[in-house]
């Protein structure tokens, strides 16, 4: 029998990690992406390699996934990660009151947490607000979004995956019973249209999964919830600086090359392809970011951008919905065979999302092939273009 052929729609973190997992498990893999790599939500991510600290109190399932995957990504793709750790800092009495709950949460989730004195925190991060009352160190990191996706994509390519970039899925190929047998695509670079047949289609289109499931007369419950990030022109910190309190707007400042990036917010929208910038949110990022790092007020704004979270849940805005990912077999959901949808999650957990998705693909095709991505170092991101 020839290798089973799987089409992956979408080349963000999720799609590229799935392509890599499928290729390692020896599938014949075709990736279809309407833009370049990571041109959806993934490229526009804040870039925090979560330790899980952010979720350790309210969403421990997510927190445990984060710390497990954080450790794995540091090993398999070190060349896109600044592994410098993160600080959770208390600036007010209310922050201080949260400290014990936070430490207990981290301990329950297996996240190493270490309290340092305010003096030590200021020695490590001289631009921190001098009013710091308490500081905790966790193994956060930061990553380069495009290069993380490219590393997965390059590794899949090395193992035989084929890419159709600038190629949009415009319809599903269905058999007489309404089961999915492939996709109809439009190559936007050459303005041509063609069909690709497959044994299985994986829908990894993030905030756009609903458009794909609709083509197959299937459905999936997700809420697109964008957030804003603002980049300033100075590298004012060397590690992730988080506010020690319940997650809220503008409570993380990250280094990216010579920049400091403040994020983020969370609200609901209808139209996902073009999300205009709301200047009041830019002002909010400056105000909130400057509480953590006052020198941000002296830095210049360099870039403002929005990204859309594909949060799982039927309705209502962001933060209370679980950020854990879900893979859907549309045979079970809508009686449509041949289509699996994966959405939700985080950049940090993309490898685990891929593992779970490909497990479902294997199960559906009656195959028993174990996942090996947790121990397989990725190829250099440069090889995606140079190969």
């Amino acid at each position: 029998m020839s290798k089973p052929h799987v089409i992956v729609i979408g080349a963000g973190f999720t799609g590229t990690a799935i392509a890599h997992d499928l290729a390692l498990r020896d599938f014949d893999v075709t990736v279809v992406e309407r833009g370049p790599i990571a041109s959806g939500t993934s490229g526009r991510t804040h870039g925090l390699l979560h330790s899980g600290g952010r979720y350790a109190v309210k969403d421990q399932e997510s927190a445990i996934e984060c710390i497990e995957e954080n450790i794995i990504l540091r090993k398999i793709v070190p060349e896109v990660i600044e592994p410098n750790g993160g600080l959770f800092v208390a600036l007010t009495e209310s922050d201080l009151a949260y400290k014990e709950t936070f430490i207990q949460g981290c301990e329950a989730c297996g996240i190493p947490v270490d309290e340092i004195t305010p003096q030590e925190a200021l020695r490590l991060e001289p631009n921190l607000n001098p009013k710091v009352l308490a500081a905790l160190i966790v193994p956060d990191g930061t990553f380069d979004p495009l290069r993380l996706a490219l590393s997965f994509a390059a590794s899949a390519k090395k193992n035989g995956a084929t890419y159709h970039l600038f190629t949009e899925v415009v319809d599903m190929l269905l058999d007489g019973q309404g089961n999915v047998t492939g996709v109809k695509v439009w190559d936007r670079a050459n303005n041509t249209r063609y069909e690709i047949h497959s044994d299985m289609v994986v829908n990894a289109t993030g905030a756009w999964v609903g458009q794909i499931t609709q083509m197959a007369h299937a459905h999936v419950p997700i809420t697109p919830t964008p957030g804003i990030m603002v980049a300033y022109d100075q590298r004012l910190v060397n590690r992730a600086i988080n506010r020690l309190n319940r997650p809220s707007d503008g409570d993380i400042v990250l280094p990216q090359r010579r920049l400091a990036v403040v994020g983020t917010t969370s609200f609901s929208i209808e139209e996902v392809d073009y999300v205009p910038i709301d200047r009041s949110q830019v002002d909010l990022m400056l105000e909130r970011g400057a509480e953590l790092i006052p020198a941000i007020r002296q830095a210049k704004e360099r870039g403002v951008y929005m990204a859309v979270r594909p949060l799982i849940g039927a309705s209502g805005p962001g933060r209370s919905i679980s950020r854990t990912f879900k893979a859907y077999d549309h045979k079970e959901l809508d009686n449509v065979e041949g289509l699996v949808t994966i959405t939700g999650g985080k950049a940090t957990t993309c490898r685990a999302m891929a593992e779970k998705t490909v497990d479902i693909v294997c199960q559906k095709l009656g195959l028993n092939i174990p996942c090996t991505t947790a121990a397989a170092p990725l190829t250099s991101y440069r090889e995606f273009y140079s190969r």
Partner: protein
Amino acid sequence: MWKITYRVHRQKGNEPPHYETFQVEVDPEEYVLDGVEKIWASEDRSLTFRHACHHSTCGACGMRVNGVEKLTCITKIKDVVQDGGTLTVEPLRNFPVVSDLVVDLGPLYRKMAAVQAPAVHALSMTPWEGQNIAPPADIPMRSADEEYIRLPDCIECGICISACPVAATDPEYFGPAPLAAIQIQGLDKPELLALADSQEGVWRCHSAFECSAVCPSNVDPGRRIMDLRRQVSAKRLKLA
């Protein structure tokens, strides 16, 4: 809101290139890339362009704006056009055009791999910091044997290659970003010395400094090439 005209380079498959104009309503505080994305979202779904991070860290969105190389995600519309005016966007030069505004940066990535450009490096390895930035070596880690790791300044955007008059005539020339990547590492590795001191290395540069004028990411490749020449000469003297 402003009403402006985007004049966009279009090219599909083997068809000859042409320019197409789009009237767009934009907030002048938005970036040139936002306008391009808006045209794609609401005017013409066939428009292709490269982008990912939208905040100058990935190097995907380099284009020529009114004839000058720019990172379009951090180039504000109000800085390159006036209300009612026209702005022209074209793909980078000196790379193969894939379609519309998309070029193939493969040649640059191959060269960056050939010169072993570090994908991450120690903080102290960034020898020239910008204004108001503390010298990197002064920032301590928790214990003396740990060092901060950071992503380099060069985002591998290819903008310097597009602006380089030598790259325009000689595709084999290593070019600004790869030579700057050798300079950052120094010449202790013999293979790097050989590349820097070759036909297509530092001596090919005409010192036009166009690269440094357009580099959006503080690399200052022109100055680094000059420094690398000095390093190569010093090595030659030592070896002689």
